[in-house]
């Protein structure tokens, strides 16, 4: 079994309405020292697989096809046995 953590973030040039709104909210709550805030996704999953490289290639495939939207997002992952 493998444990994967996937971090999905919006590409830099893509507008992040959520992040912008939260940043604005923090400002009005007197947290004015947050020059930048962006919101992405954090996905935790298990892969029932015995071979690391197979697990990894499956994870990549899933990231590209389903978990992230490569047109507007980037992804990154950690994969570990356990």
């Amino acid at each position: 079994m493998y444990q994967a953590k996937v971090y999905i973030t919006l590409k830099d040039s893509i507008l992040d309405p959520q992040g912008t709104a939260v940043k604005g909210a923090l400002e009005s709550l007197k947290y004015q020292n947050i020059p930048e805030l962006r919101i992405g996704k954090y996905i935790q999953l298990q892969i029932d697989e015995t071979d690391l490289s197979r697990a990894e290639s499956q994870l990549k495939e899933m990231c590209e096809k389903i978990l992230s939207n490569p047109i507007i997002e980037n992804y990154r992952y950690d994969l570990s046995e356990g």
Partner: protein
Amino acid sequence: MEITKDLISAHNLTLEEYEKIKTILGREPSLTELGMYSVLWSEHCSYKSSKPLLQELPVVGEYILEGPGENAGVIDIGDGLAIVMKVESHNHPSAIEPYEGAATGVGGIIRDIITMGARPIALLNSLRFGNYKSPRTQYLLNGVVSGIAGYGNCVGVPTVGGETYFEDCYDGNPLVNVMCVGILETKNMVRAVAKGKGNPVIYAGSTTGRDGLGGAAFASKELNDQSEKDRPAVQVGDPFMEKLLIEACLEISQQDYLIGMQDMGAAGLTSSSSEMAGKGEGGMSLDLSAVPQRDKNLSPYEMMLSESQERMLLVVKSGYEDKAVEIFHKWGLKAAVIGSVEANALLTVKHKDEIVAEVPAKSLSNDAPVYNRPAKKPAYLDGLKSISDAITFGKANTDFNETLLKVLSSPTIGSKKSIYQQYDYMVGTNTVVLPGQSDAALMRIKGTQKGIALSIDGNSRYCYLNPFTGGQIAVAEAARNVVCVGAKPLAVTDGLNFGNPENPEVFWQFQQGVMGIKSACEALETPVVGGNVSLYNETNGTAIYPSPIIGMMGLMEDIDHRVTMGFKNADDVIFLLGDSLEELDGSEYLKVIHDMMGKECPRLDLGLEKEVQETCLSLINKRLLSSAHDLSEGGLAVALFESCITGDKGANIVIGATGLSDAALLFSESQSRILISVSPESLYEAITYLEYKEIPYQQIGMVTKGKSLKIDDLIDQPLESLEKSWKSLVL
């Protein structure tokens, strides 16, 4: 930067077009200027292939206050009120990124309505996807529907109607057309004009970033595998920002100091500034350093072409800039004075004290080349086979129960509840006839007895067989839908989706389609108040079926007279208005059951169409009808089922000999037909009126308490099992 041939073609400009730019300027353009011309002279912004044809459309009429030319058309409904409406396509963006593509389409069309000073009160959409079973279609369908929902629900504009078709020709090129309707106090109407030398130009809304760069040019390019690389052209919408923009713009529309307003749609700052200046017969100077920016180090080129969403450009009377800016700030929006109106007819763009572009404003918006493209009747038309050549119908052993179940399970015919249930169709508390209850939605106008009926329609298979008649039918059916709730059709907004106009066969389809729309709009007295053209809808060289889409608005003087399509009471008598013919070519039945297309599209007699519509409307106004439902895809059998299931009643239909084949009796898609039901008390008066009008009609049966549909000895099915097949569309 040197302007090379490669650079010119990367901007989708021909060498002749480039020469024309040089002639206008009397010199070589700067890179920024080249970019500005390239987007404004793109097909999407300049209508260079379609202009001559669009001029054919009827645009004036008794109720029309503003036809094409402004951001949206305006229709007078009396009491000092007017309706504003327009259709917009977001086909290519939705093919690349369905959620954001559809969402930003909704955002864009809403801004066209608010620039007029109107409050958006309804959204509709027309969707075309490829084969329902393919995973890609599922992905696109889900993404598009949730994008429309995500945006429309959040801004608080109800999505009250639409249509969804599945056809293989859209596999690579889905269509997403959205329509927005707004209401306006006529006295507050705003135009997209810049006037008065020295008046300040104000930028308002969201910040400018790199997203969606070159989207306008992108929208006019053929889609091919290369498009995957055009990724940054996809924009992300911020419906929350849009909601704030709606409120702020409405507030400012009521101020006397507002002179003009324009949304930054395709080609953002360039199109809005040059169009406003062009309309005011003047010029404008802009200082890009003052533009609220999201990304660091934006170049003038990027800022002039950025298609960041949720932005507006305004001109106010000098001295009122602070007041205007204050309104936007109150709503939490960015706003800044970024320039002023000039008398010299030039659009002058400065960046950090340097002039980066200076061009005649009108040359961008008005002087794009216009092409009279050659047209040629497509060869495929000669290869089409009529079903009468191919198969014989009415085989004794056909089980029409099975057939009906299959036709109902076609996703094109099936219930669209899993789609519209994702849309907030009630916000605003004006939606009096809800999705699924009738052929058109009905919105009440608070403070009056009036209502407006809205429908969007178009059958592209008919248009493939015969784009002229198909175009006519789109108008006729949209009008019929509106009539079926009890409203008088007043005006049209159209979305013209076709393939590559440089292909003479495609251009012929386009020409025929427009001429068909023209003739039907003239006959039904529903002028075209605006619309959208989307060309180059092709994937790897294969064009979609010609797909004109008609948005129709009708007025109802007293909404208490409204009628829906569901049968109401057992023992009501069912009539079919209009003529039923042996017309299975192009039908959904033929497609689903025999996997064939046929040759002819159904005939349309506009004279008869008008008579049928007027008769139905009069019957409704005399309050003689319990229900009314237009016959469309799936013909009589499907219409009967729909009236049964929405009214939770059965029907017993006895037609007897008609001369039609059994299949045609049940599934023919003959036009100009309406299914009505009449209570026994109203029967005499209704028949008397029908006789007096001398339109073809038939009494065909009765509404029953028992929950089943019986049609002669052809069909006898419990509604429950029919309903199961009909609910095949799952999201």
